[in-house]
């Protein structure tokens, strides 16, 4: 863990900036949801959520200033979550693509 020599105190200005961004994005996503963008609605809502979550993880949870091992554990967790969601959903999304004999 030699990659992290002095423990880091994040300036409060960073917290305030992240906070304001989170609040603004919350109301942006709420208002955009009332406008019909077709399939883009889901895309916009989830992109904003991922952006907000990334800000919380990097700055409020100090992962940006954390050790490489902490970063790896976070990424490994997200990787397994993506496996869980995408492999299961890939099954549901593609079931209709081919006719199944006998059904």
């Amino acid at each position, binding site marked *: 863990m030699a990659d992290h020599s002095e423990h880091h105190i994040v300036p409060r200005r960073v*917290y*305030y900036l992240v906070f304001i961004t989170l609040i603004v994005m*919350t109301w942006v996503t709420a208002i955009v*949801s009332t406008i019909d963008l077709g399939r883009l609605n889901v895309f916009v*809502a989830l992109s904003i*959520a991922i952006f907000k979550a990334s800000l919380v993880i990097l700055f*409020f949870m*100090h992962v940006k200033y954390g050790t490489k091992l902490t970063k790896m554990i976070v990424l490994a*967790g997200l990787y397994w979550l993506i496996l869980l969601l995408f492999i299961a959903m890939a099954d549901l999304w593609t079931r209709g693509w081919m006719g199944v004999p006998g059904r």
Partner: protein
Amino acid sequence: MASHTVPHEPAPQEAVTLKHHFANEEQQKDASTIGMWVFLVTEIMFFGGLFLAYFAYRQEYPAAFASASNKTNLWLGAANTTVLICSSLTMALAVNAASLGKRKLLVLFLILTLMLGGAFLGVKAYEYHDKWVHHEVPGAHFDCEGCDDAGHAPLFFSLYFGMTGLHATHMLVGFVILVILIAQSAKGKYTAKWYTPIEMFGLYWHFVDIVWIFLFPLLYLIDRSKMGLK
């Protein structure tokens, strides 16, 4: 330990807070951080199962999910998200105050975090009550008025109550820990040199915030504009 072996000169925290199996304070703190993150990863997978259930059933019954999710109150949800983000800010500021050794400020920010969390659950309780009154709780009296594919609407509400309920349970656990931390902080247990429990609880609290950051669009937002489409 016999008293004559303990010299009085070094800072008392050092002797108390550094466990003998760690080389130094930094290694001890890194170990705590990594342990906490491993726990949070198990929490990600725990909620992940519910998120998968949501995505899978939404894929199967889009009409039921679209009309049922429009029964949620968008502006109340957005206001409550704002409250929760405020509590995340006060928690981040609490950790900051602890790291600077500002005891009174630490206690103040922890109390603010608790109060904002309480406000969030208060609004949540109001929303639950509203759903109960309107027969939107799955069960014998369920009645989704004007819903498309109403037979599958209880699936949405089951997931709504399951996911927000599990989230609220996490907040209640957080309240208990917060009360303990407030009492300990007031007594001066945490110093600029050692405040690891405050920082680890901060990670937990922000994690709970992140879960809500995803629950809000999924339960309140993504089918909102389909209301007129039918």
